[in-house]
């Protein structure tokens, strides 16, 4: 572990250039009556506008760490800086009003209407009624709930997924620069969870908050995180971008945690959008260049229908299969096996080709990464 106090433990290219919004300096938590620290000498910096996923087994200190950021749990020692300001000793209640907080199942107040739930923090910090009402409607819209339908309802009239959206809206209400999320999607069925995660990323693209997010789900960590912090019994084992965590685990613990031996499992964690794809051509002029890129025949709407030319192969004998860019390498492999094709065209939401993934690239790519690790 790094002993420096004002640098992130691991510098990553993504973090460079952005100021650090949340900085933990030598933060330690020893619960009363317990010998071993729950979190020991933690140094961590979260750059502005990034989502950092805190992950690890139960009792690893990830939730303690999250709750020390807004001082729901008071650190035993160390310093917490928020946007450069030391908040280790400021009034905790005031501090928490400036930090969004979302917990599992939203933790909505059952006796408040949805609009009132969203308005709690603005009300506490003294916004006028009109502004609070407008803000609630705006946020309901943002999280995909029709204000006229939902604003006067009560939490028990909403499904778990809807409650969770309101929970996110409530955390965003007073426009805090920082959001803390404690397994917000943990108790939600997998299909709804997947959709909520997508919407969450969509919202984050709009609001650009600095987010610390506790999860126990590696899939979720890889999907949502700009960075992942892997914890083990109070220590930060690795703090890096998802790709590095997966492909170059820092030690045996992280390697075990991400399931280092299971190469197939890793496929489902690698999103196609995170990979460097081979170019694909749809232009007729590309024909004849035998060393060039694959060329696909497209229909009127720009969707590829068949291969016109494949470098070093007979285009007519290979079926053209596609996989959406939002899928994972696992999906791509599935499609290739299914269509007996040695390559797959990766397409965007409109079905237009974005690139090509070769069976061989995939295998050699994985092999290369294993050698790196």
């Amino acid at each position: 572990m790094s002993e420096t106090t004002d640098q992130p433990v691991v510098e990553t290219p993504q973090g460079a250039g952005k100021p650090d919004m949340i900085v933990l300096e030598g933060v330690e938590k020893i619960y009363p009556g317990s010998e071993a620290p729950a979190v020991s000498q933690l140094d961590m910096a979260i750059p502005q506008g990034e989502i950092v996923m805190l992950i690890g087994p139960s009792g690893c200190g990830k939730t303690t760490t999250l709750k020390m950021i807004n001082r729901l749990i008071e650190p035993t020692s160390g310093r917490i800086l928020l946007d450069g300001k030391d908040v280790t000793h400021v009034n905790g209640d005031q501090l928490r009003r400036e930090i969004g907080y979302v917990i599992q199942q939203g933790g909505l107040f059952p006796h408040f209407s949805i609009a009132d739930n969203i308005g709690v923090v603005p009300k506490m910090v003294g916004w006028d009624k009109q502004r609070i009402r407008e803000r609630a409607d705006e946020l309901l819209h943002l999280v995909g709930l029709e204000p006229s339908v939902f604003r006067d309802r009560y939490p028990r009239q909403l499904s778990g997924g809807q409650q969770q959206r309101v929970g996110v809206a409530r955390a965003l209400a007073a426009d805090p620069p920082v959001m803390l999320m404690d397994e917000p999607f943990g108790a939600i069925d997998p299909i709804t969870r997947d959709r909520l995660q997508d919407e969450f990323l969509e919202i984050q693209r709009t609001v650009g908050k600095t987010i610390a997010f506790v999860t126990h789900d590696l899939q979720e960590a890889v999907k949502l995180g700009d960075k992942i912090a892997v914890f083990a019994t109070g220590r930060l084992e690795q703090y890096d971008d998802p790709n590095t965590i997966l492909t170059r685990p820092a030690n045996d613990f992280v390697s075990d945690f991400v399931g280092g031996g299971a190469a197939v499992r890793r496929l489902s964690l690698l999103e196609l959008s995170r990979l460097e794809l081979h170019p694909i051509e749809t232009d007729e002029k590309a024909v004849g260049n035998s060393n060039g890129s694959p060329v696909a025949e497209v229909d009127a709407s720009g969707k590829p229908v068949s291969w016109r030319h494949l470098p070093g192969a007979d285009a007519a004998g290979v079926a053209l299969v596609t996989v959406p860019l939002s899928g994972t390498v696992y999906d791509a492999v599935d499609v290739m096996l299914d269509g007996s094709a040695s390559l797959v065209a990766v397409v965007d939401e409109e079905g237009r080709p974005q690139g090509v993934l070769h069976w061989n690239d995939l295998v050699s790519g994985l092999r290369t990464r294993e050698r790196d690790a």
Partner: protein
Amino acid sequence: MNFLDYLATNSQQIVFLTQAHFLVVLIAVGIGSAISVALGLAVSTGEPDPRRFSLDWFATGIREGGLVFTAALLTVPSLALFALFLPITGLGITTAIIVLIIYTLYTVLRNTVAGLTTVDRAVLESARGLGYGRVRRLLTIQLPLAWPVILNGIRVTTLISISIAVVGAVVQGPGLGILLLNGISRIGAANSFYQVLAGTLLCLVVAAVFEIFFAIVQRLTIPRGIRV
């Protein structure tokens, strides 16, 4: 003279005693509930950390001690308690109300503590996380959510008080106990049974009025989002 004749002849006295009975119970339950709810709120804590000494320990001590003490008071026979207060507060309404207040304490305190501690922890945690201070959280989140349970305690204690208030007649406390006591002491004499019957039936009427009263209070004070 039949029962209806009896009622007609003595209607003025009967109506007066019924009103007095209602008011004595209302005052005693009102004061007793205010004390119990206030105490329950004051000593409500999170769960005190068993590994560390803090103020929460005192609150917990007062709470548990208070529950044991008021429970013990509840088991003292009402006749005895009225008699015990006689030398201190004398005959009349003061003694009657003090004793009734003592009997309301346990039920309301117990329900207040139970109501406050059973509020969903996730709700309380999110309130803390959003910057609710302790007092604000207690008054705007915990109390409204515990209110149905507390109100139920008050309702139960009211019904108990209606019957205990009858015994208050032994210290010349106002209410229907006067009819009953009078009737019982002259049992066999003219109209004595009618007196007992009237006292009993009107206690039921008082109870019915309180039930209607509580139904309205419940409707008005329980927040819409948690109404069942």
